[in-house]
């Protein structure tokens, strides 16, 4: 357990001839702010306390035994009387493990608000979603939650929790992140050099007070964009003890338009037809307020008029930027079947080399697709076919070339509808091939 000791007023022996070292008792944390960077197992902890200093040199001890705190990152600074309180040095005493000591010179006697900041690992968060589609699979409600897990060895009581979406790569980038919102400030020279108290921090503090007044309301999670990152701030304060997890509702939106989208691609899923719910993270879809972090999705669908729900599937989504189209894969559906059939095969246009051996030929295949929807709702079906070599197709069916080797056929199917389409595939081999 980490402890912070400010030794009390009694004098200690000192080598400094003219200075008395004052060690002051420690009050509890005033505020704690956790900024959790999921991608790097890194959490920035910023705590403030009111310490009573004596005039002269004071000694402050910080211990991180049994926690996952990075000791090189520990920083101390005064928030009030900042020009009168100065850290003289930091020492790591021998024979006392996991402890450091600050010697702090104070020109004032009395209460000073200080901030202690450090990185710890062992705290992470994950998003999860619940999607509930209506019976016709045209609309759904989407609810998002975040779950914070604390295995850092330290209890964080009444903490303000902020979650960072986005990938951090280097410590320098965390520093950049920390200075966002304060334009005009030059970047601090070192990753952990304290930046001045910013508008962000103050705003956060005010926000916490407001939140405490309305404690019964479900907590709101405020989202702000920061360049390549996105910061989610959980409303109010939370106590997250070591070993505990906490799930907090993030948002809930109803009547998000969705398309029940079915895909078939042999190279990906064999003969199975896969089901997807497709929607857009934008304003028209009643979303688009923030990017959605990656997480697990539980999908349900109302199956009766009185909204009895059936479990459709569990899946996961990747990070969804604002405006992006999302496809949630929900496993295969056996009520939609596709039977590709090779109906005709011909070997034509033989060519011979100078030895009289055949070295060029063309294969012409006729494929028939029988698609059937046995569901009681209409669907969109997306069939993809991959072709290799010098190929060309001829068909009356509406199709679209996806890339050099892929063609897609998209067809709407009504409830209980059966359709058939064909295409003729010509592939040139050997010397017949021109690509």
């Amino acid at each position, binding site marked *: 357990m980490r402890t912070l000791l400010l030794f009390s007023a009694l004098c200690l022996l000192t080598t400094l001839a003219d200075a008395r070292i004052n060690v002051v008792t420690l009050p509890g944390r005033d505020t704690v702010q956790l900024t959790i960077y999921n991608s790097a197992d890194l959490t920035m902890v910023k705590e403030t306390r009111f310490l009573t200093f004596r005039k002269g040199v004071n000694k402050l001890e910080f211990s991180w035994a049994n926690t996952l705190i990075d000791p090189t990152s520990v920083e101390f600074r005064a928030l009030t009387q900042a020009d009168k309180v100065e850290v003289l040095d930091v020492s790591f005493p021998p024979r006392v493990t996991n402890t450091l000591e600050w010697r702090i010179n104070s020109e004032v006697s009395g209460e000073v608000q200080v901030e202690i900041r450090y990185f710890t690992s062992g705290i992470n968060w994950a998003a999860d979603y619940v999607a509930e589609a209506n019976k016709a699979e045209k609309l759904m409600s989407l609810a998002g939650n975040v779950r914070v897990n604390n295995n850092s060895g330290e209890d964080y009581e009444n903490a303000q929790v902020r979650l960072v979406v986005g990938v951090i790569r280097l410590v320098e980038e965390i520093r950049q992140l920390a200075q966002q919102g304060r334009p005009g400030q030059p970047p601090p020279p070192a990753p952990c050099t304290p930046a001045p108290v910013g508008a962000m921090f103050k705003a956060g503090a005010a926000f916490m007070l407001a939140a405490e007044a309305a404690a019964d309301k479900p907590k709101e999670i405020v989202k702000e964009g920061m360049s390549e990152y996105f910061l989610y701030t959980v409303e109010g304060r939370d106590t997250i003890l070591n070993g505990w997890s906490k799930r907090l509702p993030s948002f809930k939106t109803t009547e998000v338009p969705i398309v029940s989208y079915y895909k078939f691609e042999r190279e990906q899923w064999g003969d199975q037809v896969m089901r997807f719910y497709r929607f857009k993270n934008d304003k028209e879809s009643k979303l688009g307020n923030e990017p959605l972090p990656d997480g697990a999705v539980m999908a349900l669908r109302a199956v009766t008029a009185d909204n009895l729900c059936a479990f459709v599937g569990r899946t996961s989504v990747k990070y969804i930027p604002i405006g992006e189209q999302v496809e949630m894969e929900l496993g295969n559906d*056996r*009520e939609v*079947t596709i039977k590709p*059939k*090779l*109906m*005709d*095969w*011909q*070997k*034509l246009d*033989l060519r*011979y080399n*100078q*030895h*009289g*051996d*055949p070295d060029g*030929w063309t294969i012409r*295949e*006729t494929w028939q697709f029988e698609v*059937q929807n*046995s*569901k009681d709702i209409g669907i969109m079906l997306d069939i993809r076919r991959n072709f290799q070599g010098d190929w060309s197709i001829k068909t009356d069916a509406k199709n679209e070339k996806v890339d050099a080797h892929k063609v897609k056929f998209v067809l709407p199917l009504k409830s*209980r509808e059966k359709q058939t389409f064909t295409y003729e595939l010509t592939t040139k081999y050997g010397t017949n091939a021109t690509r």
Partner: protein
Amino acid sequence: MALTPADRELKLFIGQSRDVKVTQRKVRDDKTNLRRNNSNHVVLWDTDEEIKIEIENFKKDAVTLVIVEHIPGYWKMVKSSHEFKKKDAFTIEYELTLPKETTGDKKTIVTLNYTRLNVQNNEPASY
């Protein structure tokens, strides 16, 4: 039995039949239209094949019999005694109604004569 959605056909295999007897013979298997390379090796040919199928129904009822034939590669039917359905590129089906007690001289005979074209002996039989 696999999941059968509504409106779908369901087939149940209920065992072997002993009262319907089928004897199938290939009665001709010739290579034609031989194409040779400069070393006089045959590198490509067509075929002329004929199959004769004799069917006897010992039952006291008429039955429906489906005969499935597989023909690999690029082929064309030259002559068939009965109407057939092409199920896919390498499969044809005869659906026959066998009258009751058609045995001996009254047996049903199906003959089919097809040619396979541009054969190199590497033709696909399935896909």
